[in-house]
Each structure stands twice: as C-alpha cells, then as structure tokens.
C-alpha cells in the first residue's frame, strides 16, 4: 500500500535534485559549445570608392587572421572592388565634408594645412578627382597602410569567401573575365542564410 506514495517521494526527490544541478550543467554545456564554435563574419560591400574599399578588406583580412570564417557579398558599386584591376578606384572630396584635404608631401607644417576647397571649384576644375585620388594614394603609402591589392590578396589567401551579386553583375554589364578568379556568383537568397548564421554581419 505504501508503493505509490514511495514512488511519489522518489519522484519528488529526483525532480528536486535535477532542478538543483540542471542550471549549472546547462550553463557549462552552453559555454563549451560557445567556445568551440568558430566565429564568423559576413560583410555586404556596396560601395566602390577608394575610401569605402578599405573597411571591407581590412575587416575581412583581420577577422581571417584571427581564425574566423569570413564571407563578403559584393553588390552594386562594391563590384568595383573585385575587378581584376583595382588601380582605378577613385575618391572625391566633392560634397564630402568629412574628407580632409592635406598634402602628403613637403615639410610638416605644410602637411598640416587643410585646404578647404569650395565644392563649386572642385566641381568646375576638370581632373580634380584624379588629383585628389593621387594625393590620397600617396598619403596611404606614406603611412604604411597596405594597398587594396595587398589586402585583397591577403583575404584570398586566407580563404575569405568572395561572392558577387549576379544581378548587379548583369546590371552593370560586367563579364566574369573582368572580375577576379575564384569568385562565386549568387543572389540575395543564397547570401541571407550565410548572413543569418554569422556572428557579425556588416553592411558597408
């Protein structure tokens, strides 16, 4: 006659014991899974000027150096970053009040001058953008910052996945030959699951 109540007592004890030890166990297991998981980064690169070329490549190469899984989805003007020849990337201070215009040559006091050239003049002088680009490239090499080509090679060597948006490739009439080898061509539906899984997803 005492059996059901004995079972009930045992049940109750077991339940209480489980409730005691379970939270700690779960936390331990979760932590284990977290630590053994490889971090991942996905980047959507949409801009094609020299200044916007750096963030995706620097973040991707650094994350790859830290052992992360990295994917970059190039779309719209971001396709400029995966052309075989990237020496044509430009930068313009026109309408870009955030960009300082300092000369990368001459004595220190000269280099410190910020030439605030009015937009009207910038727009009117032919070749202004090419000049600004040239000066920026000089500044970049003066400060030991790597070139885009170098960063891109580092990414490719580190197995960063390069994916080009097929739609914008067609839109801008790029042929696969103009773009670097080893690229995947896909659409948003392919990339979104990748983005979903990644720990960090950036829209650049």
């Amino acid at each position, binding site marked *: 006659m005492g059996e059901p109540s004995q079972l009930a007592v045992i049940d109750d004890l077991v339940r209480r014991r489980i409730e005691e030890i379970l939270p700690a166990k779960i936390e331990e297991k979760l932590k284990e899974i977290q630590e053994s998981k490889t*971090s991942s980064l996905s980047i959507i690169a949409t801009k094609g000027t020299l200044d916007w070329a750096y963030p995706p490549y*620097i973040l991707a*190469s*650094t994350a790859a*150096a*830290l*052992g*992360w899984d990295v994917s970059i989805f190039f779309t719209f003007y971001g396709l400029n970053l995966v052309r075989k020849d990237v020496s044509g990337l430009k930068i313009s201070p026109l309408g870009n009040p955030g960009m300082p215009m300092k000369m990368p040559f001459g004595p220190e006091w000269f280099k410190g001058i910020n030439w605030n050239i009015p937009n009207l003049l910038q727009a009117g002088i032919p070749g202004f953008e090419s000049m600004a680009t040239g000066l920026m490239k000089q500044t970049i090499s003066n*400060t*030991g*910052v*790597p070139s885009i080509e*170098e*960063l891109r090679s*580092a990414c490719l*060597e*580190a197995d960063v996945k390069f994916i080009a948006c097929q739609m914008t490739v067609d839109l801008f009439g790029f042929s696969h030959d103009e773009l670097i080898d080893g690229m995947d061509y896909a659409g948003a539906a392919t990339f979104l699951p990748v983005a979903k899984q990644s720990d960090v997803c950036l829209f650049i």
Partner: protein
Amino acid sequence: MHFDKELDARGLNCPLPILRTKKALTDMQSGQVLKVVSTDPGSVKDLAAFAKQTGNELLSTEEKNKEFEFFVKRK
C-alpha cells in the same frame, strides 16, 4: 629570449602586422617561437587579441625605442 624566426613588421600598419604574423606562424612548427618587431602602437593590443583568438601564446611584449617586440609561440 630564444626565437626560431624573426618577422620585421616595422613601418607596417594595421592589419599587416597581424596578417604577416599569421602567415609566418603557419610555416612554423608547433612549439617554435616567432619574434615580431613592429612600429605600430596599435599592434600591441592587436597581437594580444590575435594570440587570445588563435591560441598561439604571446610569451612577452616589450617596448624598446618606439619599437615593439613580441615573442609568440606557435600552438
């Protein structure tokens, strides 16, 4: 400190010191020590983070005459 390979990263800016370190370590054997010399002040934190993330041990960090010397042990 004894080291098996030296990497001169002077004059290189982020992220090159890390990228070059990673490349140099890949070619080395487990347990070997890589000496990295850098002039980039950012590399101090970067190398510490790199060591933590990749499991390669950062044995020591020293600053000498505006240069930074790191010893990293290949895991």
